[in-house]
């Protein structure tokens, strides 16, 4: 019974939301309610998910694991932000400054490490992938894109050189569109698989 109910609920919700995109005028009132409920549920799930974060750090403290000191910092920061967030709104200048002045520098430093990591890993490309069409193509594309974006290569309007530069610059977008189209088709089929109950991650098989 529980299994059937969850299937009926999931499929009917999915079909209404899907139909709502095509019959906006007729289904808009129901669609708004369903999407509001969905957003609310996701927000609650987000809060429950945060409990996993807190639990792992509290357990680290209790078990006196390596790095427990950092867990103290995480827990103190979390509660300061959480209580301030409850007391002040997201638009509050103090709250915004409190978050942005901590989060942005910390994340920027991680992005810096990431940039160095990517640079070093590009040197290892051939060792990891070997000499093949994909790795050579990747390497050539990276070098060409870097050179083109440095704006060292300039050409007069209407010349073949200008056309070639424009062609090379547009190539990454062509590739990206191709990949995004493939991903969109994959997303469509995944959604339909759940609507048709071929996949049922929400209930017993």
């Amino acid at each position, binding site marked *: 019974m529980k299994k059937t109910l969850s299937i009926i609920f999931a499929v009917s919700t999915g079909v209404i939301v899907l139909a709502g995109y095509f019959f906006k005028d007729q289904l808009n009132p129901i669609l708004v309610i369903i999407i509001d409920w969905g957003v609310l549920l996701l927000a609650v799930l*987000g809060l429950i998910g945060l409990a996993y974060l807190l639990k792992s750090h509290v357990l680290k403290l209790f078990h006196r694991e390596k790095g427990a000191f950092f867990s103290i910092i995480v827990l103190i920061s979390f509660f300061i932000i959480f209580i301030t967030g409850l007391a002040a709104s997201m638009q509050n200048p103090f709250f915004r400054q409190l978050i942005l002045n901590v989060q942005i520098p910390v994340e920027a430093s991680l992005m810096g490490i990431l940039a160095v990591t990517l640079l070093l890993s590009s040197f290892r490309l051939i060792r990891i992938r070997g000499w093949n069409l994909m790795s050579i193509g990747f390497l050539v594309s990276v070098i060409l894109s870097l050179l083109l974006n440095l704006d060292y290569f300039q050409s007069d309007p209407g010349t073949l050189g200008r056309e070639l530069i424009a062609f090379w610059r547009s190539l990454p977008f062509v590739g990206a569109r191709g990949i995004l189209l493939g991903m969109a088709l994959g997303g469509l089929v995944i959604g339909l698989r759940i609507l048709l109950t071929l996949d049922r991650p929400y209930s017993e098989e």
Partner: protein
Amino acid sequence: MNWVSAGWIVIGFSVLLLVVLAIVFKRSLRYQSRRVREIEAMVDSQVVSVERGMNRHIILGDQLWSWLYPGLGLHPLSTLPNLLNPEIAADGRLTISTSDGSLAVFARQIVNRSYQDGYSPFFENRGVTTTLPGSSPLAFTAGLLPEIGKHSQGMLLFLGQYGPESALWAEALRGQDRFLVAAAGTLEAQAALFSQVRNLILGEMVFMLPKNAANSASLLTEDILRILLMLGLVLGAILKLVGVL
């Protein structure tokens, strides 16, 4: 014909194909147009890790849903049950991580359901750990790196929607005896991991996970849709060239 009608035609055609092909593939037929070595390697590494008593780590990504990659964040949840048969999930050495609270909760529910199906509906699976090391992609990375470095691990699997920060996860494993498979759906992750991960599943190939009848049907459906789309684009370009459109 307007775009709404075109949408209905594409969706209706996809539904029809999926239903017909799912019925056909249930009768032991399999669609084997492509053999993805990385997926086979992942299945093998999972078995070897269980046999050797090594830890395994699955990362479910950063987001359940996004406009740019709809379906990609949801995909790990439909793959997860296939990675959790009772023998694999019962040894207490599997960790599932994500930076999205909703993904963590859904994953926990799937883990419990898989365990209850295999054993008893009254038990809860405490052998599989679900963690949320951080609530943003980079906070997640900062929390994850010490965790994956703590124990010797047999398999690491990156699923779902994640970005270039995955390069740091992969870098943390470099030179160690671990088996890494990454299903990179986003453009950023593909570019970042291409030079680092040998077993990298690129683009729409991520939807080839898991291997079952429903997936074979959806793969063939995707391939047919892709060919039709390509033909449509070429036809549209030709019509535009000759001035009809």
